[in-house]
């Protein structure tokens, strides 16, 4: 029997995380190193809320880092 999972998109790439999945799990899956920031379904999530932000199927997670800009 398959264990329950949550299917989400991390930076537009499909990803399957063990259920219950949090934003902290998504960050660990991507392996992104600080500094970075996160948003779920276009809503900013501050760092201190990662572990308590539970993800649902089809959630869109954006993890973004500093780059050059004009």
């Amino acid at each position, binding site marked *: 029997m398959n264990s329950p999972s949550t299917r989400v998109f991390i930076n537009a790439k499909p990803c399957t995380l063990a259920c219950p999945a949090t934003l902290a799990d998504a960050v660990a899956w991507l392996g992104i190193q600080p500094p*970075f920031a996160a948003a779920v379904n276009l809503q900013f999530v*501050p760092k201190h809320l990662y572990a308590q932000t539970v993800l649902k199927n089809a959630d869109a997670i954006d993890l*973004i*880092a*500093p780059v*050059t800009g004009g």
Partner: protein
Amino acid sequence: MTHAVSETPPDVQSTSPQPDPLVLYGQAFASRLLLGTSRYPSPAVLQAAVRLAQPAMLTASLRRQNLGASDSAHNTFWNLLTELNVPVLPNTAGCHSPQEALTTAHMAREVFATPWIKLELIGDDYTLQPDTLRLVDVADRLIKDGFKVLPYCTDDLVLCQRLVDVGCQAVMPWAAPIGTGKGPLNPYALRTLRERLDVPILVDAGLGVPSHACQVMEWGLDGVLLNTAVALAQDPVGMAQAFAWATRAGRSAFLSGAMPEQHSAQPSTPVLGTPFWHHT
């Protein structure tokens, strides 16, 4: 033989420039030049350009980092920003909806640990013209959230007035579309902004050569924000220096007050006593 040399001649001392800081949201900056960090040939060239130009702020942005991508590029940039120790102005470049801009601004505030935000809300991809119909509302919401908003906008007077009305303590009208290097396309509009607005006006986008920067500063605008004109020059470091000089020259000219333009020629050498001049 020895020469008596005065270390600071009195006439030089008396003409030394007075402090003339750019004040944004109550914070004083020694420079009136803001510099973008994109499109340089290398991080080393960017670093050298910044050291020479000594800008008030450096703009930066945020982008997705994908699985398996090397961390080196963004770490290099982050380390460079930290080392340069110039205030960072994050932007919301590429945002096409109010929610994208709002979320990006909040993410930038956490990453860069700053309330400053260069608000970009793009309304047209061909010209990169700001979405002037929705910009004011986004600026309003960010200011209420505690941001120091520097809105990238057009040179439309009423738009700029509305941005000021909602609490923007500076505006950043374009001179021309981003990256075109065309220089100020509508001098009347920019000069009218100077006449009508009491807040600092920073010309953002479209400047191509130092004379463009000097020109808008001569009109009394308060500063310029450059990226492509420096980064894509054959010698970006030299061009950064040239823009810094031009910005200062234009500001100094504005403060000094230009002579009134006249229609007819006026001899600069006195006419009285001109030799070989006989009345007929």
